[in-house]
């Protein structure tokens, strides 16, 4: 069941436009994949992926319209992931050096 404000807000989103933006981002990523400067292209491609994931989460998953409690739930998962990443990175630096 929708909370009234959630349902009313999400109805005004133009999902086809969102889809178009995601497709355009996919196209840009594919073009960049054949760029000569691989390292720079890979960094931009990954940044585009982060933006695409954010768009899906905010508009398709309606995170934009969810109460703060749901946003905090997602952040809890991301914080756990950040702790895991930091621990692994420290271990790798310790074992293999910088």
């Amino acid at each position, binding site marked *: 069941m929708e909370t009234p404000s959630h349902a009313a807000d999400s*109805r005004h989103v133009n999902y086809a436009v969102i*889809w178009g933006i995601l497709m355009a981002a*996919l196209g840009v990523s594919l073009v*960049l*994949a054949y760029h000569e400067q691989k390292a720079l292209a890979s960094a931009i491609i990954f940044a*585009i992926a982060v933006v695409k994931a954010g768009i899906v989460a905010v508009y398709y998953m309606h995170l934009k319209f969810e109460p703060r409690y749901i946003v905090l739930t997602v952040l809890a*998962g991301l914080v*756990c992931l950040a702790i*895991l990443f930091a621990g692994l990175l420290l271990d*790798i630096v310790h074992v293999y050096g910088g």
Partner: protein
Amino acid sequence: MRASSAAVSESESETTFATSVPTGRLGIWWFLASEIVIFGGLITIYVLFRLRHPEWAEQAAHTITAAGAINTFVLLTSSLTMVLAHNAVERGNLKVASAALLQTIFGGAIFVGIKAFEYGHEIGAGFTPVSGLFWSFYYLMTGLHALHVIGGLFAILAIQRAVARGRNPHRVEFVGIYWHFVDVVWIFLFPLLYLSS
């Protein structure tokens, strides 16, 4: 008896805690928070290994970029039909919602079919899960993702059948959130495994 069960189910779906969030929606978000750690952990470990092994680019060059790109298109489009199904439920149009769910299932099935074709091609070329660390990561991450897609397809099918009979339409939102998460995971897997060569 069935009507009674459905009524109880509807009643339970409206149950909320102090958060004012329906328990169904709360449950799926908590589930996805744990999934963030599972997929995020795998992706994190892969990225750290990848940075230390630039030679993996040669292995990544053997993945079929066109197939991955088509699958990205298919999955993003199935996310669109899924959100349109949810939108239709909000507007009370269950017939449109049911049709949009079927389109989502169709998209998911195409994704699995293309993935199966890729696996066949890669294994045929000698790239198996034990061919090296890159391929171990490749099969583990895409395989776990594919299992999530297949599980999602069964869930969407069950909910579509219920929605077609006018039962439990609120569940479209819950399975939709899950389906979009599966899409988000693929958004990261595609560039990491196909475009990083």
